[in-house]
């Protein structure tokens, strides 16, 4: 497997859509700004030319510019205006001082320590939610003191410099210092993890550290031990009341656990990761309940610190995230992270894909750190799931769909070096195919790990790549026939031409169709479509799913034929026979799911058609476009796709509106489809994890199908109500109902928008 090749491909794809050329405020420097120039260096002098400059400038006409020819006015828009309070974080009010008058030598009450720690936790979670460090953790004066100047050992981290030598550091201050050290080190791990994976800086997470080092110079173990030692010192101290002592103890242990967990989470082999996250989660209830002992210490946070941070952006206020929502976020983070590790238990390629899709589909979506952890587990160092090659996963997928027990996947072919040997030729071409397909396949997995909007957007971009992959694979399929000696199906009833299996292009086509379906379905989830587009989009969905269904039938035909031949052949071992049953069972499952999906989509499409005929769905005014232009824009991702061809607008309109059918006929059809789909979903709910190809995520899968089922039942109810109203109103009357369309997240399932009927008097 040419890992380099696919690496480059995925990098190219990644480059394609990152930021789309938008200027990122932090993109000026990825790692760090250049070091500040020395003001005094030998041989360089600064010549005062204030007067000359002013005189010369005065000679210029109003509006005239003297500028560097390569410097554009467009660039200048991004410049920070000095002395403008809204732009210039360094601008001081008259009489204002640069530094906060904060006394680091003051002693703090234990209650105040709790208050500061809890506030820092809120800031930490705000950072996880996507706010920059400059508006969150870095607003703490204690954190600022800790990080600037950059300490290289724990000895250099005293808040009050006298504490190291002359005066003994109070225990409360030491507790805060230990907690802050642990906090920053935790952030350092998280920041590095997120940076290493694919994410969107402006949408997801800000990894910018404003030229501050996150304690990279101090060893993990030193900080961890310092936390533990401080915990011990607290245990033997008796100056603190028991409740407060317990609360402080819990915070120190929590921080040590968090630090340990993020360190362990980076390895992709340890079985202990999930347990670590669970242990961390167990701290939360007491953390939450003991926060009432805390005393807020607002003066230890300041927005002024931004003046000291390297920043190309204007000053911004401190972000306030409530304690409740930060605990919620942390709780979810622990839970999601513990689940994400389960991806390392590999069952088969389909279950892997299902796992990733369902995990990303969790509502609310797992936080960026957890999503990057998932990416890390799947792809780290081009090793899949910690110990598998990409070829392993890809071959697994081919074997379980189009090539069960096939000589093309025989690993022994690789060892044949005689160029005219058929097996050598097969191995050669399969290698070409894998090198081509691996990039697309990995990109698919990585795409699904992004935020919801980006998933759809990236799929829209990469779908053309799958179309090309299908064409390339088709060529290889034709070439391979000479080496596999494939006997075509000769059936005059189906076709006068011999029918070949085209396994590799079939595989690509299958995944291409799946992704086209997702593009349409995620459009429902993301509320991309207007209400009057829903009939058309559900029609398009059923068109794609039906195409997949027919394609699966074709694949199944070839698999079954191979199966029959293998059973008659006594030389085929039983484990190879199993490969056929496995492939057929996957195709049956996928067909079943397809049947339920297209039935449901059909039903909703007809229902929406009737609703728009009854003028119950309003079209927004669109003075600057017409239907066919809008259709072209909507279907832009599919315009370049060769197969299935895009349905022309006129044809689509006729098919959806079905002018020859009456409203009641359409409703009858919708109701029948819904009943069929319901039966389909019911059968699906009874499948085992193995049969539903969702090993490792059966519970979420089942919940998902059940949500589809509920949406389907609700659709039947809506259809019945509309039918009744139409019957009551008679042929020419207006039914006395109105329609409510629930926003995304409020219905039973985000991919199924089911209108609700409300009677009007």
């Amino acid at each position, binding site marked *: 497997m040419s890992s380099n090749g696919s690496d480059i491909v995925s990098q190219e794809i990644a480059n394609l859509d990152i930021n789309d050329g938008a200027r990122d405020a932090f993109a*000026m420097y990825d790692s760090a*700004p*250049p*070091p*500040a*120039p020395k*003001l*005094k260096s030998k*041989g*360089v*002098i*600064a*010549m*005062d*030319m*204030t*007067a*000359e*400059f*002013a*005189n*010369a*400038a*005065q*000679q*210029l*006409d*109003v*509006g*005239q*510019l*003297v*500028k*560097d020819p390569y*410097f554009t006015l467009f*660039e*200048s828009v*991004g*410049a*920070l*205006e*000095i*002395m403008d309070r809204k732009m210039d974080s*360094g*601008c001081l009010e008259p009489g204002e*001082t*640069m*530094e906060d008058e904060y006394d680091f030598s003051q002693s703090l009450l234990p209650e105040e320590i709790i208050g500061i720690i809890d506030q820092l936790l809120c800031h930490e979670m705000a950072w996880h939610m996507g706010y920059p460090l400059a508006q969150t953790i870095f607003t703490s004066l204690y954190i600022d003191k800790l990080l*600037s*100047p950059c300490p290289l050992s724990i000895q250099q981290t005293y808040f009050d410099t006298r504490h190291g030598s002359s005066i003994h550091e109070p225990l409360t201050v030491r507790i805060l210092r230990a907690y802050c050290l642990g906090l920053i080190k935790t952030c350092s791990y998280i920041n590095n993890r997120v940076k290493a994976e694919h994410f969107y800086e402006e949408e997801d997470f800000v990894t910018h*550290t404003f*030229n*501050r*080092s996150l304690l*990279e*110079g101090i060893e993990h173990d030193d900080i961890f031990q310092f936390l533990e030692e401080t915990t011990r010192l607290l245990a033997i101290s008796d100056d603190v009341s028991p409740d407060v002592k317990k609360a402080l103890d819990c915070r120190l242990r929590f921080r040590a656990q968090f630090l340990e967990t993020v360190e362990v989470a980076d390895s992709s082999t340890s079985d202990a990761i999930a347990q670590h996250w669970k242990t961390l989660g167990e701290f939360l209830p007491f953390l939450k309940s003991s926060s009432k002992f805390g005393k807020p210490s607002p003066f230890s946070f300041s927005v002024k610190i931004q003046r*000291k941070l*390297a*920043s*190309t952006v204007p000053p911004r206020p401190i972000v306030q995230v409530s304690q409740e929502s930060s605990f919620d976020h942390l709780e979810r983070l622990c839970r999601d992270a513990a689940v994400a590790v389960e991806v390392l238990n590999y069952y088969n390629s389909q279950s892997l894909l299902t796992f990733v899709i369902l995990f990303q589909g969790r509502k609310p979506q797992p936080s960026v750190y957890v999503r990057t952890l998932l990416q890390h587990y799947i792809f780290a160092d081009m090793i899949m799931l910690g110990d598998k090659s990409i070829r392993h996963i890809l071959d697994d997928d081919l074997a379980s769909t189009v090539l069960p027990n096939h000589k093309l996947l025989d690993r022994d072919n690789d060892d044949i070096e005689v160029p005219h040997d058929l097996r050598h030729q097969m191995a050669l071409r399969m290698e070409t195919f894998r090198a081509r397909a691996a990039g697309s396949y990995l990109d698919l997995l990585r795409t699904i790990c992004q935020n919801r909007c980006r998933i759809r957007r990236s799929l829209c971009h990469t779908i053309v790549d799958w179309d090309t992959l299908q064409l390339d694979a088709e060529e290889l399929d034709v070439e391979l026939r000479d080496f596999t000696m494939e006997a075509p199906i000769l059936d005059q009833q189906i076709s006068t031409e011999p029918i070949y299996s085209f396994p590799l292009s079939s595989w690509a086509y299958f995944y291409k169709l799946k992704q086209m379906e997702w593009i349409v379905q995620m459009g429902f989830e993301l509320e991309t479509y207007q209400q009057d587009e829903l009939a058309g989009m559900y029609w398009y969905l059923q068109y794609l799913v039906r195409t997949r269904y027919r394609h699966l039938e074709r694949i199944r035909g070839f698999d079954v034929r191979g199966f029959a031949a293998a059973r008659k052949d006594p030389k085929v071992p039983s484990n190879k026979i199993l490969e056929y049953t496995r492939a057929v069972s996957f195709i049956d499952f996928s067909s079943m799911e397809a049947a339920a999906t297209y039935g449901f989509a059909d039903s909703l499409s007809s229902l929406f058609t009737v609703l728009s005929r009854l003028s119950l769905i309003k079209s927004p005014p669109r003075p600057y476009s017409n239907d066919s232009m809008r259709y072209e824009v909507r279907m832009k991702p599919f315009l370049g796709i060769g197969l299935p061809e895009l349905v022309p607008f006129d044809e689509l309109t006729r098919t959806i509106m079905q002018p020859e059918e009456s409203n009641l006929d359409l409703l009858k059809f919708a109701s029948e489809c819904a009943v069929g789909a319901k039966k389909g979903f019911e059968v699906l709910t009874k499948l085992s994890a193995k049969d539903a190809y969702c090993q490792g995520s059966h519970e979420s899968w089942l919940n998902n199908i059940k949500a589809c089922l509920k949406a389907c039942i609700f659709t039947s109810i809506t259809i019945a109500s509309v039918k009744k109203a139409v019957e009551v109103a008679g042929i020419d009357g207006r039914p006395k109902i109105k329609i409510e369309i629930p926003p995304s997240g409020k219905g039973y399932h985000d991919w199924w928008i089911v209108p609700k009927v409300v009677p009007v008097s």
Partner: protein
Amino acid sequence: MAQTKTQAESYLASLLGKTLRVTTTDTRMFLGQFKCTDSDQNIILSQTFEYRLPPPPKEPGTTTQDLTSRYLGLVVVPGEYITKVEVEAFESQLSREERERFGVGSGKKENERVGGSEGEGCALG
């Protein structure tokens, strides 16, 4: 110094791309590459660093005061706030006239107060 407009333009153009040190009314100094100016003497600098005098020491006796610096990127300094404009030059490339004017080689040194920046020695890994 009387200047024609053409002389003024070519003088300003000759400074483009050079490193300027622009001091503002609040005593901050901005060091960056000169990109653009206009009749109001608004100055655009790229890759700019801000240098600021630290607050006066609380305890008398501590004498070493370093300028603190930070990176800002592209900035525009409005002409009305500018108190001083300096251009950096290599001593060796100055004409005799300029040497005399700026006292180079006469023992007088510019920017005696200037030290290193606070963040030095703490580059990000």
